[in-house]
């Protein structure tokens, strides 16, 4: 216990704790929507496109996350618009965006004179260096996401389930879809700091799929995901301390471990239930 109370005396540990909490809530909620609506690949596209913005911001001497926000938002809105038009193959356009974003990022980082930023921290996250102002932004976005889902829970669920039906009832489907894709873009950019570009996808999919093993209820999946995400992040952080491995990779590895263990437990539960029902 003394070990933990000792840890909290360090600001960076407090920051990491809060950052994990915020990011678990943001990813738990948005990820449930993403997984349910089968938008994981879209989110991957947005995530990687935002790297283009990070590179460009380095070159122009701006805050890297300003660039990431611009790229994430424009790619998110672009994907939503394209899928609405439906006349370009959706997955292909995401693939193009995905690779183009990474290429732009690398080119700009390369031509930025006399400066080599720590690219690894953007690829794999750096939860231990989250700053005060970044925490404020995370906290604010957490409140916005909670508020949005609390206020519009039913429309969000119903429109995601059957968009065409909702449109046939003249429900404001586009307004909700565009708002959500903007929130997803912002959520992704914020979480690049914690999990990194490569691994932010796992934060949005692993806890949700673990939760989905034990529940088919949208609301329950949200709550379970947040809990799994937070526990996994904390355990991953602890693991990264003790083993001296990078925090982002350690967190995601922990989340994956939780998923696979749960999957095995679930297989055994199902098997037991089957035998019980046969007796």
């Amino acid at each position, binding site marked *: 216990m003394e070990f933990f109370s000792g840890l909290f005396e360090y600001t960076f540990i407090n920051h990491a704790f809060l950052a994990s909490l915020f990011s678990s809530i943001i990813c738990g909620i948005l990820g449930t929507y993403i997984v349910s609506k089968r938008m994981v690949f879209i989110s991957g596209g947005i995530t990687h496109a935002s790297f283009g913005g990070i590179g460009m911001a380095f070159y122009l001497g701006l805050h890297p996350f300003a660039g990431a926000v611009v790229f994430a938002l424009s790619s998110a809105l672009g994907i939503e618009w394209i899928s609405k038009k439906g006349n370009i193959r959706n997955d292909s356009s995401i693939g193009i965006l995905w690779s183009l974003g990474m290429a732009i990022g690398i080119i700009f980082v390369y031509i930025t004179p006399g400066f080599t930023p720590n690219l690894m921290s953007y690829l794999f996250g750096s939860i231990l260096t989250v700053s005060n102002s970044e925490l404020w932004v995370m906290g604010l976005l957490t409140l916005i996401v909670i508020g949005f889902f609390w206020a519009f829970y039913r429309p969000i*669920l*119903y429109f995601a*389930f059957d968009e065409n039906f*909702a449109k*046939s009832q*003249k429900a404001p489907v586009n307004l909700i879809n565009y708002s959500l894709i903007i929130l997803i873009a912002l959520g992704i950019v914020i979480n690049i700091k914690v999990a990194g570009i490569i691994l932010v996808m796992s934060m949005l999919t692993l806890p949700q799929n673990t939760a989905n093993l034990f*529940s*088919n*209820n949208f609301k329950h999946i949200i709550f379970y995901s947040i809990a799994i995400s937070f526990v996994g992040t904390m355990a991953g952080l602890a693991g990264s301390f003790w083993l001296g491995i990078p925090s982002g990779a350690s967190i995601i590895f922990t989340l994956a471990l939780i998923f696979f263990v749960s999957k095995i437990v679930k297989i055994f539960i199902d098997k037991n239930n089957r035998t019980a029902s046969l007796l």
Partner: protein
Amino acid sequence: MNKPLIDIKNLNTGYGSQKALDNVNITVESNDFIGVIGPNGGGKTTLIKAILGLIPVWSGEIVSNLEAAKIGYLPQFNPIDKEFPITVKEVILSGLAGKKGLFNRYSILDKKRANELMEQAGIAKLKHKNIGHLSGGQMQRSLLCRALINQPELLILDEPSTFVDNQFEMELFEWLKELNKEIAIIMVSHDLGTISSHVKTIACVNQHLHYHKSNKITPEQLAHYDCPIQIITHGTVPHQVLATHKH
């Protein structure tokens, strides 16, 4: 005379540059029961989507004298994501999505109406079940309840009897007959034999639309309408299957 519910004039529409409907005219009056038949890819679902405002109209017009959200819609079964984490009750309440908009709460009355519909459809026990656990017939019942919860004046069904058991099909047609006393119904089917005894009129859609104001239609008339569908008479084996006709 009452205004028609829907009046479609010289409608042209399609997908991308591909025309699916050419100069279509049809009027839907209250208490109509129209069976929409035609070959696969002939534009049956396109017509439905145009009426529902899901695809843009290229030219012509669709005049609707219905309030928004007063069209009940039972979409085709296949595109529905059966793994989506949503319960039967939630699916049915989602039929109020248009009426409620973004800010209105779902009242006790709404939930009561959902319960009544589930009782009527015989799916009350499945209320809290996830849709992934339903059979085809149970799923169609849930979707029909969703289409009815907002008390529509026009009900549009796209292939309601795919993936369902015979018992549900019979119950469905009984229910529709009852509903048709109050509201108009448009039902798409690829199977003329199943629907002809239940509908009042038949619309043959194969890019063009020929409106046949009776539920009796002969193969010669179908050929004349350029509507090559297979007619399967149900009943004694062997089934009588007429060859498809072309001019």
